[in-house]
Each structure stands twice: as structure tokens, then as C-alpha cells.
């Protein structure tokens, strides 16, 4: 289990340079696909390039997401001791409630005894 803190959310990504280059290509291919001066074939080819570039960028975004999963599992495991303690506290409070329920029964019992003693002239 990892005890290291995860990288801060704004930490630099080593794939950023490749990511930027792909984004540039995406912008260029989109512009070419929409350029009415281009032939239909050229625009279709540009659209195909755009789709392929977007898929590469998707893969990098997915890699970021899946790469975080192991750290997330470690952090989830680290929650267990605190959760166990919280569960114990909850159980203790519930037990207290039950004990106090018994106490109210005792109160009732005491009053009954007092009432009976009163009836006998002993209090």
C-alpha cells in the first residue's frame, strides 16, 4: 500500500509536449475539414485525420485516468482504520441509547415502588 501523497492536481504531466503537438494537429485538421476551398476528398481526408488525432488524445486522457486508479485504491485502503473507529463509535452511541432506555424503565420501576410504598404509608 502506498503511503506517499499523490502528485498535486496541477503537477506537470510528462506527456504534455506530445499532448500539445496532438492538439495543434487536431486544430489544423479541423480547420482543413471545414475549409470550403478544399476539395471534398481533401476535406474527408482531413476529417479522418482529425478523428484519428482525437482518438490519440482520448487515449492520453484515458491513460491519465487509469494511471490514477492504483493511487486511489491505496487511498481508499487508508480510510479503513478511521472508518472502523467511526463504526465503533456509532455502536457505542447506539448501546448508550439502549442503556438509557433501560434507565427509563428503571425510573418507571422506581416510581412504581415509591407509589406502592406511598400506598402503604411508608413514605
Amino acid at each position, binding site marked *: 500500500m502506498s503511503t506517499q*501523497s499523490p502528485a498535486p492536481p496541477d503537477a506537470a504531466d510528462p506527456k504534455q509536449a506530445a499532448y500539445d503537438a496532438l492538439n495543434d494537429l487536431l486544430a489544423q485538421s*479541423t480547420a482543413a475539414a471545414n475549409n470550403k476551398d478544399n476539395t471534398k476528398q481533401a476535406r474527408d481526408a482531413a476529417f479522418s485525420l482529425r478523428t484519428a488525432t482525437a482518438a490519440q488524445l482520448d487515449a492520453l486522457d*484515458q491513460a*491519465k485516468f487509469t494511471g490514477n486508479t492504483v493511487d*486511489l485504491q491505496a487511498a481508499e485502503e487508508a480510510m479503513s482504520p478511521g472508518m472502523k473507529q467511526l463504526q465503533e463509535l456509532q455502536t457505542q*452511541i447506539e448501546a448508550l441509547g439502549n442503556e*438509557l432506555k433501560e434507565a427509563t424503565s428503571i425510573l418507571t420501576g422506581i416510581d412504581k415502588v415509591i407509589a406502592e410504598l406511598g400506598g402503604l404509608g411508608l413514605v
Partner: protein
Amino acid sequence: MGGMTLIARKSSSYRLLWFRTVAVSGLVAALSGCVLSPLASRTAAFSTAATATVTQTQNAYQLVNQAYSDAQMATLVATYDTSGFDATKIKPFLPDKDLEVRTEVLAGLKQYATMLAEVSGDKPITDLETQAAAAGNGLVKLEQDDFKGFKIDDREKNLAVTAVVAIGGMLIEHERARALPGILDKMNKPIQDICAILQSDIGTVGKPGLASALHRAYDSQIAAQQKFIDDNGVHLSAAEKRTEIEVLPKLVQAQRQSDQALAATSNSLAALAAAHAALAATKSQKDAPAFKLKLSELVENAQLINNFYLSLCTKK
């Protein structure tokens, strides 16, 4: 002689009633104000805001998957004539096994928030009040049915019930004060780590992460829609063409709102981490302005995101 005994009995009963009334009044006065400490109130407030943030993070994953699916659909429609249909290419953007881990972690966060609320909130006290009130009513009934000669008035019954609730409240609060600070300390690092990783999942537009993926999913829908109009415009009626063109600004608007929703979700996760850190740091303080400030930021963010997701749902 019998008369004397009756007077003595009545006098003794009055003394007993007086003693009990004074004793119970004193106890209630001594214990009043013990119920629901400042820490417990803060913990309950944090839990409510945390549960909202968890729900909104789940919404963010759904939003990304939905936008990606819509982009796949739009691209398929735009390229069907040249590329046909390949069923193996139709996949959710977020892999199931990784999404399952997020779902589990968020469920864990929600459970933590819920348990904190249950343990810290006033439910244990209200349960106790109900139990004590029922016992008090039973007591009165008992006197009326079986011991009519021995009077117990409503005031005394109410005092007894209040005393039981006050004692119970104090004991519950004692248990909370003993255990909660340690739990908050122990949970702080995992909570900070989880929020940081979930924020890292989202990232910002222009860097690898869900925010970029979502933004690009709308770009792809726009590009596919433009291609569809360009390729098929001559076959469409004026009304049909107008309907297709009207989709474009709607997609731009949805993209802007989705970008904002994800950014707000990321901010909300940061605010959640900060609020938990402030909660742990102010555990022994009576008043905690630092925590209140962080909580208000968290609540503000939660409301903001809620409005975004609601508006997106309405437009679907």
C-alpha cells in the same frame, strides 16, 4: 390515629415530590447546554456538503461518458457512407474497472459523511427523547390506572423526561468528544489524497484529463455536425437544414456549460479537502471561523455545480 397517619403520609409524599422536583430541576439545569457540541454541529454540516460533492463527482463521470458517446454517434453518422459501422469501436470512454474503483471510493466517502452525520447529528438525542417521552407517558398511565391515590403531575413527569434526555445527551456527547477528534485526524490524509486524485482525474482543458476529453467530445460533435451539413445540405429542405444548423450553437453552449461544470466539480473537491482539514484542525475549538469559511466555499461550489447539472439535464 388513622387521621394522623393519613396526614403524615400526605406530608411525606409532598416532601418526596418536592425533593424529587428540586433534584431533577437541578440536574436539568446543570446538564442543559451540553447537548450537540460545536464540533458535532460542524461535523454534521460538513457531512451534508460532502455528500453533495460526492453526488456531483458521480454526475461528472456520467457527463464525460455521455458526451463521448454522443461524439461517437455524431462521427458515425458523418462518416457512415465512407467508413461504415464497426461495432467494436463503440465503447464507454471511462473503462468499467477504473470507473468501478471511483464508484467504490465515492461510496466510501459518502458512507463516511453519512456516518459522521449520524454519529454527530441530533438523531441519537431525538431517539432518546422519544424513548423517554414514551416511558414518561407510561408512568402517568400507570398512576392513573393502578395508583389513583398517589398523584404525579405533568410538571414532574416532564422534568423526569427532560432529565433522562439531558443525562443521555451528556453521555452521548462525552463519547463523541472522546472519539471524534482522533477519527478526524486519522481520516484527514486519505480524504486529502482522494480529493487530490479525483481532481487530477479531471485536470483542466488543454492538459491530459477528463476536462480536456469532455471539451474535445463537444468539438468532435461540432465537427461531425458541420460535416453532416456540408455533405447532405443539398438534399435537405430549408426547414431541415435550419434544424441541423441550429444544433451547432446549442453544442457550443453545452460545451461551455460542461467545461464550467467540471471546473466547478474540481473546485468543489478542493473545497471538500480544505473543509475536512479545517474540521480536523479546529476539533478542539469552540468557534471555528476558518472551518465556517471553508464550508461556505464548499456549499457555494456545490450549489453552483447543481445548477449546471440541472440545466444540462433540462436541455437533454
